[in-house]
C-alpha cells in the first residue's frame, strides 16, 4: 500500500495543488483523492470560484476607467521617453573627460599597452625567481582587439520611422471645395447618450468600446496608406 497516496491532504497542500506547484507524483495522488472525497472536491472547486470572481472583479474595475486617462498616462510616458532620448543625445555629444583622454591617446595606445605588457612579464619573471619555482608566472595578456569602447546606446527613436498622420489636404487630392454645411434641424437632447451595442466588428483590427454611463465611444485605428510596410 502506498502511504503517500493515502496520506491525508493538508489544507496548504491542496492550495499548492490548485496552483500546480506540487511535484508530479504528489499531484497525481491528490488528483485521485479529489475524485473520491467530495469535501475535498468542493474545497478545490471553491478555490476556482474565488479565483474567477477575483479576476472578474479586478478586470471590471479596470474597465471602468475612462480611456482618456490611459491616454494621459501615455502622454506622460511619451514625454519621459523624449526626455531620456534628449539626455542620451546630449551625453553622446559631450563625451566624458576620460573618453576624450582615451580618444586623444589613440595613436599611442598600442605601443603603451605593449610596453605595459613587457613590464608586467618582467616583473612576473623576477617575482617567480624569488618565490615558489613551481608557481606559473602570471602573464598579462594583451588583447589588441579589446579597445574598450563605450557601449552603443540604444538608438533614439527616429522621427522618420514614425508614420506621419494623414494630412487632411492629402486626403482630398481633387482639391474640391467643401460644400456648405447642410441645414440640420435641432435634435432632441436625451439625458444619456449611452449606446447599447448589439453586434460589432472591428474589421479584424484592435478596437474598443468605452461606456461611461452617459457617453459611448468606439475606438478604431485607421489603416493608413503609408503604414503597411512600415514599423511592424
Amino acid at each position: 500500500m502506498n502511504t503517500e497516496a493515502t496520506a491525508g491532504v493538508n489544507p496548504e497542500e491542496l492550495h499548492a495543488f490548485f496552483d500546480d506547484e506540487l511535484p508530479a507524483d504528489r499531484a497525481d495522488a491528490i488528483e485521485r483523492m479529489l475524485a473520491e472525497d467530495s469535501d475535498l472536491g468542493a474545497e478545490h472547486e471553491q478555490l476556482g470560484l474565488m479565483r474567477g470572481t477575483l479576476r472578474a472583479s479586478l478586470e471590471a474595475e479596470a474597465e471602468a476607467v475612462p480611456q482618456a486617462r490611459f491616454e494621459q498616462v501615455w502622454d506622460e510616458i511619451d514625454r519621459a521617453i523624449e526626455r531620456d532620448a534628449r539626455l542620451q543625445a546630449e551625453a553622446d555629444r559631450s563625451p566624458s573627460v576620460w573618453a576624450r583622454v582615451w580618444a586623444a591617446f589613440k595613436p599611442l595606445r598600442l605601443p603603451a599597452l605593449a610596453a605595459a605588457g613587457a613590464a608586467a612579464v618582467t616583473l612576473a619573471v623576477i617575482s617567480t625567481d624569488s618565490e615558489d619555482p613551481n608557481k606559473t608566472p602570471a602573464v598579462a595578456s594583451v588583447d589588441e582587439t579589446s579597445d574598450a569602447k563605450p557601449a552603443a546606446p540604444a538608438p533614439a527613436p527616429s522621427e522618420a520611422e514614425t508614420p506621419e498622420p494623414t494630412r487632411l489636404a492629402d486626403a482630398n487630392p481633387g482639391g474640391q471645395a467643401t460644400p456648405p454645411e447642410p441645414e440640420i434641424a435641432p435634435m432632441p437632447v436625451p439625458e444619456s447618450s449611452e449606446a447599447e451595442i448589439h453586434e460589432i466588428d472591428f474589421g479584424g483590427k484592435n478596437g474598443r468600446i468605452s461606456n461611461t454611463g452617459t457617453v459611448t465611444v468606439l475606438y478604431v485605428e485607421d489603416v493608413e496608406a503609408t503604414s503597411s510596410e512600415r514599423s511592424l
Partner: protein
Amino acid sequence: MIHARKKLLASALAAVLMPAAALATVAVPTAAHAAEEADCQLTAVHALKKGDGTIPKSLDFLADQLKDDEFAAYKSFKLIERKALKLKRDTASEARFSTGNRIGLTLLGNEGSRLKLHADIRSRNGETKLLAADYSIANGGVLLVRAGELEHDGETGKLFFAIQCSGKV
C-alpha cells in the same frame, strides 16, 4: 443550522439578483410609433491635446459629450465637417468626408423610444471597413467614434465622428 443559513444566504442573493432578473423577463418594449424614418447628422471633429478647453459654438450640441471624462485628455476641439442624412428604414445611406472616410448608416427600427441603427465606417484610403456595428441609442443620442490621428490646419490631433439621429418614436 447550516441548511437554514444556506437558505438565508441564498435568499439574500436572490433578493439582490432578482430585480435585474425581473426587469429582463417583464420588460416588453411597446412602440408608440414604429420608426420608419430618421434624420441624422454626422460630424467630424478634430480633438487636440493643447488649448484652453473652450468648446466652440459650432460644437455646442456636443458639449455634454466633450465634457465627459472620456475627453479629459483633449483641450480643444474643431469642427471639420458636418453631413446630413435622411434615413429610411432598412435602406443604407452613406456620407463621404473630406478625410476620405465614408460612414454608412441604416435605420433598423426602434425599441420603444430608442432608435436601432447600423453604422459602418471605412478607412481613409477606402480599402478597409474599420467598424460595423448594430446598436440602439436614445432618440437624439450621440454615438462617438474615434478614428485615429489626423493632421488638420497644421495640427496633429485625433479624429472623432459624432453620429446623431432622431426619428418619430
